[in-house]
Every structure is written in C-alpha cells, then in structure tokens.
C-alpha cells in the first residue's frame, strides 16, 4: 500500500510477502473468496437456467476486495453495499442459501424475495443494506458512523461502491461530510474500470477516479491492488484502526476487474480484446492459491476448503430450488413499523 498526498499516486500491484497475516486468517481470506466465487458462479448458472429472476450483478473477479475488507472487520462493524453486493454480503457470513434464495426470489431468501438481488440486507450480520441508486449509500454510511461517534461505539462503517460512482454528486457530499466531522467511515472504491458498458477513463477527468479526488477532501490518495487479498486485508486494517482511533475517514481505491458482464444480460462486448484474459491471469482466487502455497499451506487444506464450499453451494442450491415462492400476503407487510401498509384510517 502506498499513501501519497500529492498528485502522483503510485500504484502497487504486488503485495509484499511478509507473514504478518498468519495461517488462520489466510485460510479465512481464501475461504471467503472461494465462497464468493462459487456462489456467484452458481448464480450465473442458475440465471442461464432461468432460475434467477430480475437482474443480478456479480463480483466474479472482485472477490479479494470483499474478502479482505470483511475479514478485517469485527462483529458489529457495518457494511453498506451496492446492487453488486452479493460478495460483501457473503463475506460477512450470510449463508449462501439466503443469498441464492433471494436471487431466485424464493421464500427462503434473505428478504423473502421482497428486495431482490440488488438489495441484500442482513442486519444481524451488519449488512445494512444494498443500495441500487448510485451514490446514495455513501451519505447513509456517514450517518451510521455519526451514530457510532455520538454514542461512543467503536464500530466502523464500511461503504463499497464502484469507480463510476465517484462522478455522482452524493460521493462528493459524503466525502466532505465525513471529513469535517471526522466520522469513522471507510469508503472503498472497487475500480473495475467500467461503469455499465462505458470505460471509466472515457468519462472521468482524472486517472484514479477515487484516489485522485481524495486530496479534495484532505485525504490521502490510496490505490491498492484489489486482486490481492493480503494487500486488501492490510489496507482495511489500517483504515479501520484509524477510524476507531478517532482519526476519521479513509478513501481507498482498489484496482480490479469483473470477469462477467455488468449485469445478467451483458456479454461484455465493449471490452477490448485480450483485456479480460490479461486480468484473468491476475485472478484473485488464483493469486491467493499461490500465496497459500508460498506460505507453506498444504494443498490438502486448500482442497478441503474447495470441497466444503462446493458442497455448501450445492446444498444451498438444492434448498433454494425446493423453496416455495414467497406467500402473497407479504406484499403488504413492513411498509411501516407497525408491520402493515395502512396510509389511512
């Protein structure tokens, strides 16, 4: 990780291979990435079978970011996600069945099908919602952090969003707001180099959509390799520690790439030839398997995780396929806190 307060922000594309992280955490980081990889791949397969309805935005290729930030969190820390939130939801420990069930709009889904793929929320896991209007959740994360500060709680609010999101107004307002009140919030830009189908550099005035804006809020410009879970994990730890110590917000840009299209229907044709292939060489799961080997973790331990996760995702899939659709009466529940929807007497 490189911090730089000036305009020439250096990029780090390889982690320093020190062993501060430790085997247990490394296995956690790996398992988290594999769960995301398998569950997202399954979501895609289920979509092809017409079992995932509506839209869905996968994080294939971006697993290291979710795994790294979530693994560095403590219970009680809060995640604020976008429509591309499956990965972050899974990384906080939400069961795969709950996530796939929601994508399949079944009664066993995380929100029983009422929210859908773009709005995964699991309050008990600290997943405070997935927001589908670009930028909206950055100020909301500030509010959660304001509560922590006000109440003297030591949790951190972590807000994930894409490169394209840095060009909307709410981004700007949230960053300034967080800094002036020194809020314990960490803004994580997953720079996967594209908005939906448009390359981010075509519509952005600076090279690094997040980091090059950091100095506009008195923050350090931080760019890290988002495909290396170790680097992400360490970056997260530093930012959380700063936030908990009253040091205020951080803005972190993680360089990455999505392996699939933007959403369910997108074949991703707008990407220049070879680009996907080049990024696949830097597949985060592949990188991390190598990392584990470098640190002498046995192939058996790795394969055990692969097998366990595969089975978990298979079981979840079966459970979802068997699950009924939501009952019709929940159409009218939970509009208001009294459980109902009455707007009149």
């Amino acid at each position: 990780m490189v911090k730089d307060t000036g305009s020439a922000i250096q990029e780090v594309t390889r982690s320093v291979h020190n062993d501060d992280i430790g085997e247990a955490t490394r296995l956690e980081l790996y398992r988290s990435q594999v769960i995301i990889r398998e569950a997202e791949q399954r979501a895609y397969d289920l979509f092809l079978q017409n079992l995932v309805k509506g839209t869905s935005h996968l994080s294939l290729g971006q697993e290291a970011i979710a795994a790294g930030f979530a693994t560095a969190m403590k219970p009680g820390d809060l995640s604020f996600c976008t429509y591309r939130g499956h990965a972050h939801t899974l990384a906080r420990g939400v069961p795969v069945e709950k996530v796939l069930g929601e994508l399949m709009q079944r009664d066993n889904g995380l929100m029983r099908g009422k929210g859908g793929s773009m709005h995964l929320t699991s309050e008990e896991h600290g997943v405070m919602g997935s927001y589908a209007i670009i930028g909206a959740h950055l100020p909301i994360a500030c509010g959660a952090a304001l509560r922590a500060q006000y109440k003297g709680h030591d949790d951190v609010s972590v807000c994930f969003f894409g490169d394209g999101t840095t060009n909307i107004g709410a981004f700007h307002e949230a960053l300034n707001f967080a800094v002036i009140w020194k809020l314990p919030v960490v803004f994580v830009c997953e720079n996967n180099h594209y908005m939906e189908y448009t390359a981010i550099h075509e519509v952005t005035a600076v090279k690094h959509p997040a980091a090059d804006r950091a100095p506009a809020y008195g923050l350090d410009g931080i760019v890290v390799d988002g495909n290396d879970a170790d680097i992400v994990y360490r970056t997260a730890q530093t930012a959380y520690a700063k936030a908990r110590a009253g040091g205020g917000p951080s803005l972190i840009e993680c360089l990455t790439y999505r392996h699939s299209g933007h959403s369910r229907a997108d074949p991703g044709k707008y990407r220049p030839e070879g680009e996907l292939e080049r990024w696949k060489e830097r597949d985060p799961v592949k990188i991390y398997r190598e990392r584990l080997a470098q640190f002498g973790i046995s192939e058996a331990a790795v394969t055990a995780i692969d097998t366990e996760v595969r089975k978990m995702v298979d079981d979840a899939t079966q459970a979802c396929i068997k699950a009924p659709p939501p009952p019709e009466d929940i159409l009218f529940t939970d509009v208001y806190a009294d459980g109902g929807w009455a707007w009149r007497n």
Partner: protein
Amino acid sequence: MAELTYREAVARGIAQEMARDPDVIFFGEDVAKAGGVFKATVGLYEQFGPKRVRDTPISEQAIMGAAMGAAMTGLKPIAEIMFSDFFAVCFDYIANEFPKGRYMSNGQTKCPLVVRTGNGAGSRFGAQHSQSVENWCMMVPGLKVVAPSTPRDVIGLMAAAVRDPDPVIFFEHKSLYAVKGEVPDGEIVDTLGSAKVVRPGTDATVLALALMVPRALAAAEKLAAAHGIQVEVVDVRSLVPLDMQTILGSVGRTHRLFTVEENPRLCGWGAEIVSIVADEAFYDLDGPPVRITTPHIPLPAADNLEDIALPTVERIAQTIRRALEA
C-alpha cells in the same frame, strides 16, 4: 398556558424531545449557532450543545443520508432542509431511500427520523423558494407527512413525529412562523393521522392545510356572516396517515366537499381526497366536489401577483358560495 409564535413552537417542540431522549440529534444548514434562517431553532445549540445540534455544509444529500444512516442504527435524528423546494436536490432520500428500506429488507431495517422544512408562499421569494410540496411526499409510499397550522400543533405533532418509528416529513409554513397561538404548559404530544374539525358546520365540508386553515376559517366566518352559510372546516394536519374517518364523517353530514390547497393544482392532496370521497361517499354528495388551489403555474415574486395566486379568503368564500348556490 403561554402565547407562543409558531416559530417559537418549533424550537420548543424540538427541545421537548431532545430533553426527553438523548438519542435525538438535530442538524442542518445554519441551524445551530445562528438558530436557523427562519430563527425557528434559536436556543437549541446553547441548550443541547455542539454534539447534538450541528451546522452542516450545503450538502442536502449528505444531510438526508446521514440522518437516515443514524436513524437506521439507533439515533432519532431531526434534519432540516431549509426550504422545501430544496427537497428536489435530495429527493432520492425522500422518494427512494427512507421509505423503501424497511420493505425491501423484509422488516429488518428501520428509519425513525424527522425532516423538517420551511414550506409555502407569502414571502415574495419567487418560484424556487415558495412552493408547497406536500404532495411530493404524500405520493411516496412509506413516508408519513404532517403540516401543522398552529403553534400548539407544531409542538404536539413534532413530538409525535420524533417518537414515531417511521420517517416523517414535517412541513412548517413560512408564512405562519410569526403567527401566535395559545400553548398549554408542560409536555404536549399529539397523534399523527388525526384531522381536526376546527369549525363545525352543516352546509359543506372544507378541507384545508397549514396556511390555508386560517384562510378557510376566515372564509367560513365571512360566509356565515354575509350569507348564513355554515361550513365545516377540517384541518387535515396529517396527509399520511390520512384521517379519512373524520373527512368522510364530515362529508356524510354536510354532503358537499371543498378543498383549499396551496399547491399548484395537478396531483395535489385535494385530488387524492376528492377521488376517495367520490368513490366511497358518492351518494352522500349533493353536488360536485370543488378544489380551490393555486393555479398550475410557477409562483411569481411580486407581492401583488403572489397574493392573487394563492387561494385568498375572498376566492375561497366566493367559490364555495357559488358552488352551493348553483
């Protein structure tokens, strides 16, 4: 009993709730040290300190988003949007975030906050600082919407709004800030969703909100004095929840319905209520329901033009009389 202005009632209402519940915080532009541009929050900063009463940058989206995030996680924020016209720069929170989280999460999340705002015309501020936009909020499922017309109601409904577990949009009328009214001592807590018959009558039901309530009342007195027409004036007070029992009850007695709306005509709250009454009480009606609104135009700045744009006592009285005599 004390005589308070509507403006003072805002501060007292907020203070009552902040004193009661340490989780109530309040923020907005220029609301703290300066006491608000309408001076409606004078004294709160001094009483509750800079942690609980905060000045923000000009960042309405951040204000609204921060209120929501705080509300979701355990606080009870009151956020000010200086002029209700500015809802347009943070409308995503009003239309898409506050009111949908609980539903989308299948009841997992909550959003107990209050947005208070200066609404309405009469200050010669022109088209971008004078609008009545209650319908911008009424039309959104999941919000609650109130608009008090008296100092007493300001306090009572503010308390109800702060204590309510759902997002409440609280419309204060700029042209009422200087108006005085009797307010009882001690804690005042009202209920959302209750309209008030503020003048009984037998010949017609007249629904009004906020600044239009005193005008409807004045028109009623005029009609009674000059023409012996007795209209029943109902202060709707709360658009969501909407007290249709009181409204339908009144129409059941008077058999005629009028609305007095400050908003420009199209899709105002009166349209909704007329459509409900026309459906559910069609056979109670002895004549057409009539809406008296500001014409469907942007508001002019000039005093003489603004004065004739809004429903006047004269226009209200005349419209009612003509309709009843037709």
